[in-house]
C-alpha cells in the first residue's frame, strides 16, 4: 500500500485549514509529516537546512484534483495549493480506502487533526518540530547515536529469538519479517549511514528516510516486543508498520527491496 503523489497531496489539502496550503515549503513539510504516521507516500525526501525536502514539489503543476495558484510576496513568487471538488472525491474514495487498511478511524482522525493544526503554523515552526522529533540537528548527534545503539541492542536480542515465534497465521509470518527487516535496516543505518556522527556539520547527502526509519522503528519497538510474546496478534497494526518499514521506499533509497544490489548492504 502506497499513496500516489496526487492522493497524498489531496489527503494533506483535505486535512488543512480551508483545504488550502499557502506555500510549497509548507506543503513539503506537511507531506513529510505523513511519514511519522507510518503512511507510505510516493515522495522521496532529502535533508536540507529546513528539514525534509523534495525538489519535485517545486515544479508541481495544477491538475483536476488541485490548483497551483501563483502569487507575489515581497518581490518573490509563491504558490498556493487549493483542493478542487475532484480532489475531494479522490480523498473520499481512493485515499480513505487505502488508509483504512492501516489506520483505525481514531488514528486517522488524529492524523487529520495534526495536519490541520500544523497547516495553521508557519513553515519554520513545522521544521523546528520535525528537527527535534527526528534528532536531525548537529547538536542532537549524541542523542541520535544513543538512540541508534539502544534500538540496535533491543532488536539484536529480539532477532536472536525470532524462531521462537511459531507461524500459526499470516500475522506471525509478517511479524517475523518485520523484526528481521528492522534488525538489518537499523544495522545498516548504524554501520553505513550514521557512521560519521562525530562530524560537526549537516550531512546534506542524507536521505530523510534514514531519520524516519530510525524514529519510527524506535516508536514501534515496545509494540513489536509485546506482539512477539502474544499468541493472538494485532494484524492491522503489524500490517501498518510492515507496509511502511518494508514497502514505502523505492530504488532511490539503498536499503530497499526494489534495490537489485540490496544483498551487498545486508551486512552479516
Amino acid at each position, binding site marked *: 500500500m502506497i499513496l500516489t503523489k496526487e492522493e497524498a497531496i489531496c489527503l494533506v489539502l483535505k486535512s488543512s485549514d480551508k483545504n488550502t496550503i499557502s506555500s510549497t515549503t509548507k506543503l513539503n513539510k506537511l507531506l513529510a509529516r505523513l511519514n511519522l504516521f507510518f503512511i507510505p507516500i510516493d515522495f522521496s525526501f532529502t535533508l536540507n537546512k529546513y528539514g525534509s525536502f523534495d525538489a519535485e514539489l517545486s515544479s508541481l503543476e495544477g491538475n483536476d484534483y488541485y490548483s497551483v495558484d501563483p502569487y507575489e510576496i515581497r518581490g518573490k513568487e509563491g504558490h498556493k495549493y487549493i483542493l478542487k471538488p475532484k480532489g475531494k472525491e479522490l480523498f473520499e474514495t481512493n485515499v480513505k480506502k487505502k488508509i483504512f487498511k492501516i489506520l483505525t478511524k481514531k488514528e486517522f482522525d488524529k492524523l487529520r487533526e495534526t495536519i490541520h493544526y500544523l497547516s495553521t503554523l508557519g513553515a519554520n515552526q513545522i521544521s523546528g518540530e520535525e528537527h527535534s522529533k527526528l534528532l536531525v540537528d548537529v547538536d542532537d548527534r549524541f542523542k541520535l547515536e544513543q538512540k541508534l545503539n539502544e534500538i540496535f541492542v533491543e532488536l539484536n536480542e529480539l532477532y536472536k529469538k525470532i524462531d521462537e515465534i511459531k507461524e500459526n*497465521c499470516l500475522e506471525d509470518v*509478517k511479524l517475523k519479517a518485520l523484526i528481521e527487516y528492522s534488525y538489518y535496516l537499523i544495522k545498516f543505518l548504524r554501520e553505513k549511514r550514521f557512521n560519521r556522527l562525530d562530524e560537526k556539520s549537516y550531512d546534506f547527502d542524507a536521505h530523510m528516510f534514514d531519520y524516519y526509519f530510525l524514529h519510527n522503528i524506535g516508536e514501534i519497538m515496545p509494540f513489536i516486543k509485546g506482539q512477539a510474546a502474544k499468541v493472538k496478534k494485532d494484524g492491522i497494526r503489524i500490517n501498518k508498520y*510492515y507496509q511502511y518499514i518494508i514497502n514505502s521506499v523505492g530504488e532511490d533509497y539503498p536499503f530497499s527491496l*526494489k*534495490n537489485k544490489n*540490496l544483498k551487498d548492504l545486508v551486512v552479516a
Partner: protein
Amino acid sequence: MASVNNNTYAFDECSILHLCEIKIDNAFVNFFSKDKLTHRNYSKLKSLISKLDSKGISKYRFEPLNIGINIIKFAEELLAKEGNQVIMLSRILKSQITDQLEEFSGDVMINFKKILKNENISGIKELFINNERELKKSENIPEDDDLKVIAGYHNFNCEGKKYLISEDEHFWEYDDLIFDNFNIKIVKEWECHNLMI
C-alpha cells in the same frame, strides 16, 4: 447448434491459490534468475480458466476454512522448490509472497461462485474409514473439511456433471469412491487442461 454446457466446475482452495503469479522484488531476483514465481500447474489451470471464461461458464469454489494456513503452506512449498539459493532476508521473502497470495485470494474470490459446505459428514466419514487406502503424502482418511466439501458439493443442484479440480491426494486417491457415491468427478489439477469444455 452447439450443446449447452450444464456441468459445474469447482476448484478447491489450494488450486485457486495456484492461479497466482507471484512477483519477486528486485532484491531477490538474482537468487531466482526470474522475476515471477508460479506453481507447477499454473499454466494448466490458467488454460482451463480461460476456456471456461471464453464460454461464459461459471467457476465455483467452497467457503475457505483457513486460508491463512493454506497460503503459508503454499509459500513454503514454493520456497522449498525454488528458494534454496536465497541467502538473506528469507523471512521477508516469505512474507512478501504470503502478502501477495492473501491479496490475490481476496481479489479472485469474487470471480468464483460459492458452494456451501455441509457440516453433516458422519455418514461420509464412515464410508472413507470402511474403504481406507494407503496414501503417500497425507493421512489416509480425508480431513473433516475435505468431507464437508464432498457433502456440500453432493447436495449442490446441478443438471450436468460435477467436476472438482484439486491437487489434494485425499480427493484423487479416492476418485472412484467419490464418483460412485457422490457423482463428483475428481480432476487432478495437473490434468485439468485436458478437460473438454
